[in-house]
């Protein structure tokens, strides 16, 4: 809780932005510095995802986790991006034309989001570590990495939820190194950076595609939902997972519409990071891929091999962690009823579905985000769009079905789940769909307005 810690976090997040900018130049390139400024949020989140994935691999391989390791990994990632950019002949960026004007209403809504983020920062600045899961295992895992320079066998086998992937603990340990101490109070500010980065990434990606009023009104609606306000700063993996999943799903949606290779490549990195953040990340990643396969069935010869390759890369990134915990005899990844043991517990199906739906549509937690998304999907269909509403309907539908399966098959959970939202596992799951809505709802409503899901202005890399 010192100025040094805050400056350390600023340095870490600038470092992530630099790494991500290098990667984005390799994956996509940019024609002007204004374009980079618009995509700075995406670059930052790419940097976070890439650093998180790479440091997870560092931990699994057993390379000592130190400040030098973190810096070298970041430099290597940025250099790889720059190398690819040079190899692909990316042009040198110019100053270029200024940003699009967003109009009075858009500017007012953007100002409200900025005011909200400022208020959230003040709440984060001196927040104690209250969240049970955070002090019970997420932060202890991060401290173990920080103090012992790796996946300490004792702590990583004794701490609860031993099979949970270590991407978030690795990022937290990175923050400790940049802060110079395991400052669990200032650590909350890191999660503020992640939220701000996610919002900036979505705004950067959609600013040229959808009207500012649509974009900012849905960003504001999701951000001020009571659950987001109350929980987004907690130093645990739930909302980080949601940001990574949201960006992966958005980039896949854009790829389905525009077929720019960088969109799928970036989505692949986010999908890999999603799978390394929490175990339900695998379920969410599978939903995105399955929805994309179905939404692209008309052009399957071109789309499916690419989606298959993206899936294979994401799985390959997540696999080493699984090898590590299996080789260390850690268990608890799979449901207690077994993957196929649902038929023995048929009586749990209906209350499981009821738990998921009541949580997802709880206005006290999420206001009206999901009802509006359903309306947006229907309106896009009515107006004549097809690819985007099919994709969105399937992502949301499959995810809700997947959450139901999870609750149904983890038989130690009493159903229907009616716990307080602080400890309710279904609420954590459904948050991902609310965060995704920040990105997909404006796209869907724009498609409904224009009567097509073809982009008005396709972005050329």
């Amino acid at each position, binding site marked *: *809780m010192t100025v040094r810690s805050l400056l350390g976090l600023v340095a870490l997040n600038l470092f992530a932005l630099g790494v991500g900018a290098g990667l984005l130049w390799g994956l996509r390139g940019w024609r002007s510095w204004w374009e980079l400024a618009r995509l700075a949020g995406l670059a930052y989140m790419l940097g976070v995802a890439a650093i998180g994935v790479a440091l997870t691999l560092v931990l699994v391989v057993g390379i000592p986790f130190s400040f030098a390791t973190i810096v070298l990994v970041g430099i290597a990632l940025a250099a790889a991006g720059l190398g690819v950019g040079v190899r692909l002949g990316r042009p040198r960026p110019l100053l270029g034309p200024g940003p699009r004007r967003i109009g009075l209403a858009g500017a007012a*809504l953007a100002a*409200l989001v900025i005011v*909200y983020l400022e*208020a*959230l920062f*003040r*709440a984060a*600045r*001196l*927040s*104690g*570590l*209250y969240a*049970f899961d*955070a*002090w*019970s295992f997420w*932060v*202890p895992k991060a*401290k*173990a990495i920080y*103090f012992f320079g790796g996946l300490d066998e*004792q*702590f990583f086998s*004794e*701490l*609860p939820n031993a099979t949970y992937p270590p991407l978030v603990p690795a990022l937290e340990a990175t923050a400790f190194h940049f802060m110079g101490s395991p400052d*669990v*109070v200032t650590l909350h500010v890191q999660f503020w950076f992640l939220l701000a980065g996610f919002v900036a990434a979505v705004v950067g990606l959609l600013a040229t595609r959808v*009207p500012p*009023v*649509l974009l900012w*009104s*849905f960003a*504001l*609606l999701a951000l*001020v*939902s*009571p659950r987001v*306000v109350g929980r987004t700063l907690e130093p645990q993996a739930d909302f980080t997972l949601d940001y990574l999943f949201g960006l992966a799903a958005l980039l896949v949606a854009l790829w389905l519409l525009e077929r720019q290779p960088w969109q799928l490549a970036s989505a692949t990195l986010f999908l890999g990071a999603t799978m390394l953040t929490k175990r339900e990340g695998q379920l969410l990643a599978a939903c995105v891929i399955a929805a994309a396969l179905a939404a692209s069935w008309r052009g399957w010869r071109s789309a499916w091999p690419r989606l298959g390759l993206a899936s294979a890369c994401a799985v390959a990134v997540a696999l080493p962690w699984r090898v590590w915990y299996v080789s260390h005899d850690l268990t608890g990844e799979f449901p207690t009823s077994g993957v196929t043991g649902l038929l023995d517990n048929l009586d749990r199906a209906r209350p499981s579905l009821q738990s998921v739906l009541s949580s997802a549509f709880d206005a006290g937690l999420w*206001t*009206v985000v999901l009802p*509006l998304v359903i*309306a*947006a999907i*229907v*309106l*896009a269909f*009515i*107006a*004549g769009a097809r690819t985007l509403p099919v994709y969105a309907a399937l992502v949301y539908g499959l995810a809700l079905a997947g959450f139901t399966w999870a609750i149904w098959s983890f038989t130690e959970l009493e159903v229907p789940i009616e716990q307080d939202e602080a400890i309710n596992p279904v609420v954590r799951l459904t948050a991902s769909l609310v965060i995704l809505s920040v990105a997909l709802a404006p796209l869907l*409503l724009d498609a*409904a*307005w*224009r*009567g*097509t899901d*073809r982009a*008005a202005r396709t972005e050329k890399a």
Partner: protein
Amino acid sequence: MERDRRNAASGAFGLDVSSFVVWPLGIARLGVVLCTAVALGYGLVYFVKAVDRLGDTARTNAAQNFDDREFAGGNALVVANRPLYEARALIPEDETYRVVTGPAVQGATELTASFIDHYARYFLMPRRPAPDARWVICYGCDPASLGDGFEILLEDEAGILVGRLAG
């Protein structure tokens, strides 16, 4: 209507209210306007609540002292802060410790006995917990059960002891 569709497809976002009753695009556009209005309405109402709530949280956080902020969630179960602070000061970072619980802690909550070892593991790291550790944090335990040679280095009024076994 067709001109509207062309304009819209090109990215124009003008409001032609008269087209809102035309099926299907006009109805869809009416729906877009309504959805946006609902999002804006809820967003503005909840924005005020959110900023108010976050202001309260920031004020509460700022008013706390260093100990309360550092213990945070642990305040619900540690009973007193001093024993764990003393344990952190006394136990060298490369030594092990164990937490032994018992019924004799005054002011214990229902969470204390179940979770104090979890919290100590988080709070005392890099010190490692071990079942045979020389250093003992006794949360209402019977010191006699620890064996001979238990040297008490801190005794808290709530019945919490920090000490070490000889050898």
